[in-house]
């Protein structure tokens, strides 16, 4: 099942990466707050429309009318304990009903949201290295503590220097390197692992670039979270390669904050457009 999901996500990532590169290309040229706001606005409206057509709008309308009626009853008959309690019970039931009617559209919109967030994360979750800056590169290997270690090396490259060569963490089957960025650009680090060559993207530059934190292994969630690079197969000696990029410091488009900003901004835009699109939430 997990392998099947991994296949699905890998296939989905191919067109999404192509579309993501194309559609989010302007992110590189505009301020982070602006690009995140525009994407959030567009997503708010698209998700609103999706909600409209995947939810039972009539049923939501009925429940909301019922809640309104019971709220009115609470106001009018506040002297009558029995009416008040019945109305309160119905309000709670109505709230539960609204939640029930939200399950289907929520499930439907969850998938595109995850895929879009993964694409946005490439831009906002970290910033590329700047020339002169150092970063850790971590390779995870298949096998257990007693397994043999492959011969691993990094091919020399113009974009970066290896300043601390491979250091093995035996208990975790990991290999660490420390590199120092030299030239701006989107490059590849080439690793020789026994007789096989594997690559990992390395982003060096100022401003916004698509930064792939990890080339994932064969796990559907990792592939979903790190869509940019082709995952390693289940039998590969290398299970993942990650680079510890620096955090991007911004309250609107920086590490950790950009997701919160996206949700708040998309909700605000969805609420603004709700009356025009006649959507019941």
């Amino acid at each position, binding site marked *: 099942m997990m392998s099947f999901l991994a296949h699905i996500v890998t296939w989905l990532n191919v067109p999404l990466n192509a579309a993501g590169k194309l559609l989010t290309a302007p992110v590189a040229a505009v301020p982070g707050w602006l690009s995140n706001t525009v994407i959030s606005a567009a997503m708010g409206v698209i998700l609103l429309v999706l909600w409209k057509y995947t939810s039972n709008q009539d049923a939501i309308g009925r429940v909301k009318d019922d809640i309104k009626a019971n709220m009115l009853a609470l106001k009018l008959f506040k002297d009558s304990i029995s009416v008040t309690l019945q109305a309160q019970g119905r309000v709670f039931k109505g709230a539960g009903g609204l939640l029930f009617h939200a399950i289907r559209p929520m499930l439907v919109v969850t998938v595109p949201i995850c895929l879009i967030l993964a694409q946005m994360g490439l831009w906002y979750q970290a910033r590329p290295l700047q020339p002169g800056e150092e970063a850790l590169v971590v390779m995870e290997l298949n096998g257990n503590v007693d397994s043999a270690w492959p011969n691993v090396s990094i091919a020399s490259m113009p974009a970066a220097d290896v300043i601390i060569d491979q250091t093995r963490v035996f208990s975790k089957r990991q290999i660490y390197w420390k590199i120092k960025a030299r030239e701006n650009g989107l490059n590849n680090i080439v690793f020789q692992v026994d007789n096989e060559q594997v690559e990992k993207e390395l982003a060096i530059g100022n401003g916004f670039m698509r930064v792939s934190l990890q080339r994932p292994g064969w796990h559907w969630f990792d592939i979903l979270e790190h869509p940019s690079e082709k995952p390693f197969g289940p039998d590969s000696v290398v299970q993942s390669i990650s680079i*510890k990029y620096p955090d991007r410091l911004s309250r609107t488009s920086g590490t950790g904050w950009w997701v919160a900003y996206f949700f708040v901004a998309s909700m605000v835009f969805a609420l603004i457009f709700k009356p025009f699109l006649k959507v019941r939430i």
Partner: protein
Amino acid sequence: MTPDNNTRLNRRDFLKRSAVTVAALSTGCAAKKKRRPTNRVIIIGIDGMDPRLCEKLMSTGQLPNLAKLRQSGGYRVLGTSIPPQSPVAWANFINGAGPGSHGIFDFIHRDPTKQVAPFFSVAKTVQGEGYWEIGDHKLQLDFWPFSHKPPTTVLLRQGIPFWDYLDEAGICSTFYDLPSNYPPSPSKYGHHRCLSGMGTPDLLGTYGTYQHFAEDGPVRTKDEAGGKRSMLFFENETATAQLIGPRNNLLKAPEPATIPFCVHRDKAAKACVIEIQKHKILLKEGQWSRWIKLDFEMSLPALIPNKHLMAICRFYLQEVSGNFQLYVSPINSDPSDSALRITEPPEFIKEISDRLGLFYTTGFQEDHKALANKIFTDEEYRIQAGMVLQERLKLLEYALENYDDGLLFFYFSSTDLQSHMFWWDSDLKHPTRSAEDAKNCFHHIHKLYHKLDSVVGDILRRYGDKATIIVMSDHGFANFKRQFNLNTWLRENRYLYPPNSTGILRNVDWSRTRAYGLGINGLYLNLKGRERDGIVEPGEQREQLLDELSARLEAVRDTNGERVIVKAHRADKVYSGPATTLAPDLVIGYCRNYRASWATCLGDMTKEILLDNDSVWSADHCADASEVPGVIFSNRPISAGTPALVDIAPSVLTKFGLKIPPSMQGENIFVM
């Protein structure tokens, strides 16, 4: 500086420029006409810069910038404090008056009402009052209706610091790393800013406690002066350990908060990976990490969110392949989110950190304890001290960029804490080093002076024609070859009983003891009515005893006939002012090459009165004031013949057109 930094407008600039713009718009540029004429004074405090060495290096052309100041009449030997200890000396500088005004007489004071209860002289922590017990915790709630009083740290320095007069007159003053001012005294009018220096503790509440982890370390963490040693046990090349942090005083039985961390070593690569909280640090043998942010969680009762103290430390991987050794710097308060109040105003530290990132916030930054305890080699200490100096030079750059007018004070500790360990200007045998090593180490001090001379040169180039620049030190330096145990001398000469006493905090017969030593230079009489168990009658008996002790101490000779003590100063003759309550009765002024023994400081006794110093701490300044004066250089001619530390504050006030207040004992040293 990066280009980004050069083009950035800092908050102070922004606010200032905005204010000027608004003022100009509202008054038709009248503000410009009314503005007080710009007056600038820059003081560079170089702790322990010695006049003898300066003069020697100036004469050989190694201090060209300072030599230039000397040629233009701006150089004098600067009288230091009695005793010449840094907290005393810098407090003299701060008050423009002697210890009688500020009440600091030694690193260590005692509470006479508790019969020799020692405490640090500059600051103390006052225990809180009241708490609410919940389970294992005791909570102090400082709001109504509980109104508990949490513990606070109080600055013990008394009197009025000279910046208060500037503050009142609306003249800005900014101090970086100012000693004897933790916690920083408040600014009443908002024109004074200060980053506390010497005396500022680490998060363990000490002056700096390193942690050392090694395969051959003790199984249970062992405390040593200035550090902790622990063992690392590797299994499959991975070891786990605990970093010890601040004590959680919210517990009924307080214990330190800790952070677990993992070390993975690769012997072949001579490197290791350290995993601590969210950080992964890859270090090669001999490499230092950057500053690492740590979050110490202090547990609180269930349902109350735990308290977090933000800290920083650096890791240094000393050895991988043989005996694995990892040094961790003292746990400093995180300047970007400081748990301690180390600046005035409190947000000043954040402003600095926003520009400079993370840096040492403890008062003692050079880890001399690690060298003294043989955790560091000479070279490792030199590198660590070099990193401190680099950080401080960046801070100086920040200070100069943010300086417009008023007073700017900047302090360097490098000369002091490196001289203590590397100074040796004698042909006599060094306490721990070979003659060649001692020579090389002293040469390093020469290079340090040269480096600081170039820093002064840079400031002169930038501000020489726009500001009064003062370069000064609080005292000089001397070799520390022999140590004198004052309490052993008192015991042997029947002032202190019983004859087999081993320490004044352990086994002293106070009913017969007439005098005792505590701290580095202090001698106290066991005075009736002052000491809890005092026996010496005030009046004639006291006078006679003081005269007798002075005369006998000044007559002490070493085995080779050398004089040991220049003068035993009577405190009632050298101190005056309102804060003399805790003053010792005699201040022992040692000759060059001599100092109070290590054991004397906390009252311990040794078998011999005079013994060799066997510590790598081979130079000191806690001698007689006449033996280790400081220096003063200025780009303005100095008219005073024998200026002293207490003269600097009055001179600064005079430069700003203010009157010298009567509380100050010093005078203006510059040509009027």
